[in-house]
């Protein structure tokens, strides 16, 4: 028995209009997310992963326009839906956790009230019921002494506690899908670990789907079952995390993996792959990664590369992915102890 995917993204396109031209921030992205599954989106800044996430919840930044493709969440086509329908889905079906909890929480509102807002306004609970629910949620996300803490303002809490508040808010509407935009990047190393464990626990207990955006492969490895690697607005590789990390097929993925010094520990930002991400207003001809690719050949410059299906659930966008495979065979990324 297979369940229908909770999220179906097909050929998503998002553009920004800048003075110097049109930036194709998301250029034909497609993926599915199953109910109760944690799905990762990996890439450098500028890869389009955050914009994709924003598109899922319908909160694109100012100036961005959805110019193509469809997004279906829980059977509803959100791209074709009107603003009211979209708004209806937010919070109760889809919710979001943001990167920097200090700026993502209202500085003049008590955290308890912020958590209680959705139950109060969207779920129709009474004021006392909503407050009780907020305290319940705070306990669920591991905030000690929740009754007292609910009276606090965001600036009075530590970073880790603030992030837990964010998670509580995201869960307050009983959503089916929680979008995570680098929720641990702004946190201390030890706290990062705690938060990730919390997210994993919650995901399993509540059977929610996660779409987890990060530039940190180790974090994705800890949290997600499947992932898509994004580069320059496109998906360049996708599949099960285990498989992709053991046997990457795209030179970019390989580069990312090799750049992580110690795979087991949740730590470093991406170290360097030579070169820098392309200007999305004028991407390179042919394969977008070719200027930085170790295995580049002549035909890589010729025409844009399509996604190729390797297996069930396994895709790669590279003409010479066998090169990458060979490289991994010679020098494996993950050495089993």
């Amino acid at each position, binding site marked *: 028995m297979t369940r229908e995917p909770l999220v179906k993204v097909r050929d998503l396109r998002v553009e920004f209009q800048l003075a110097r031209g049109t930036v194709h921030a998301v250029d034909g992205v497609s993926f599915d997310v199953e109910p109760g599954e944690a799905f990762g989106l990996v890439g450098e800044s500028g890869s389009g992963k955050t914009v994709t996430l924003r598109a899922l919840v319908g909160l694109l930044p100012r100036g961005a326009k959805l110019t193509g493709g469809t997004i279906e969440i829980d059977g509803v086509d959100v791209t074709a839906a009107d603003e009211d329908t979209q708004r209806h889905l937010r919070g109760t079906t889809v919710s979001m956790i943001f990167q920097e909890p200090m700026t993502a929480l209202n500085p003049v509102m008590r955290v308890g009230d912020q958590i209680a807002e959705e139950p109060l*306004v969207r779920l129709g609970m009474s004021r006392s019921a909503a407050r009780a629910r907020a305290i319940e949620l705070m306990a669920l996300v591991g905030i000690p002494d929740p009754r007292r803490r609910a009276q606090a303002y965001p600036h009075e809490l530590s970073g880790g506690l603030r992030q837990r508040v964010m998670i509580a808010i995201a869960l307050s509407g009983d959503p089916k899908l929680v979008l995570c935009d680098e929720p641990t990047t702004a946190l201390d190393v030890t706290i990062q670990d705690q938060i990730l464990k919390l997210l994993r626990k919650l995901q399993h207990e509540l059977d929610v789907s996660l779409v987890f955006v990060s530039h940190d492969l180790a974090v994705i490895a800890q949290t997600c079952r499947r992932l898509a690697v994004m580069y320059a607005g496109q998906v360049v590789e996708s599949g099960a995390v285990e498989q992709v990390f053991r046997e990457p097929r795209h030179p970019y993925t390989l580069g990312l993996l090799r750049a992580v010094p110690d795979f087991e520990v949740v730590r470093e930002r991406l170290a360097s792959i030579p070169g820098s991400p392309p200007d999305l207003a004028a991407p390179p001809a042919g394969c977008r990664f070719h200027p930085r690719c170790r295995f580049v050949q002549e035909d890589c410059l010729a025409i844009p590369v399509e996604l190729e299906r390797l297996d069930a659930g396994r895709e790669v966008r590279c003409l010479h992915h066998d090169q990458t495979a060979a490289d991994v065979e010679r020098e494996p990324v993950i050495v089993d102890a």
Partner: protein
Amino acid sequence: MTLGEYVGRHLVPGDPARTILGNQATPARVALVRHAWGLDRPLYVQYWKFMGRVAHGNLGDSLFYGVSAGHLVLQRLPVTLWLIILSAIFAVCIAVPLAAVAATKADRAPDHVVRAVPLVGLGFPAFWVGIVLLLIFGLHAGRLFPVGGYGSGFFGHLHSMILPALTVALGLAPILIRSLRASLLEVLESEYVTTARSKGISEKRVMRKHALRNAIISTVSVLGVNIGYLVGGTLVIEQVFALPGIGQLMINSIFQRDFPVVQAVTLVFAVMVVLVYLLTDVAHALLDPRVRFE
């Protein structure tokens, strides 16, 4: 503060004693009057005595009217206070909705219209606006409002205050609009507004509970700073609308060279401004919990 204006007052050419005595002034008589009022003592002695009397609530006697300057001021103070409070209320009522519309429809037609308001509005001389309003509402369109004076009874007062307060408010509103709009735009871009939206609550509630509550904070400061404008505006507006407030008192006293009264009024103005700054600080702390724990 008081020292500065006191010295300023006394730089005025034109001997008050001579003015009062008019054409009965002979050197002897002038000297007598000056002695009676202590005007022949050195400046610092006069100032000392003045501050002493102020501490006891005595602001000196009006040279012109012969009654206590403090009394005169107190008599007319309510009018001016009415004007200031009403103007502030009007200004806020005008500015907030306009700024909100401009910020939510940023860069589209309504925004451009609202942005034009400060641009054009700041160039309007306040007194001229008053005159134009008088023209339109006082004299033509059904003679809706009185052309001057204070009216009687609570509603009479209110009625005669509407045009003047509106005039001052129209002068203050552009500054508020500009500041609030900018503040709102910034706030609407912030992450916590996105968080609020991700909860799926209505845009109206987002605006009310999240955006405005934060944007208002910086605007309160702007309002406070511009109270100086408000207070100064009453000075001129009271002239235009013939309102018997302390602004008109000041101007008349200036022309009559009535020192003690001018002094008293300036002192009261200065005190009012300081009070307003204090109030602004308090309001700021009330609105912004981050400030409280310093």
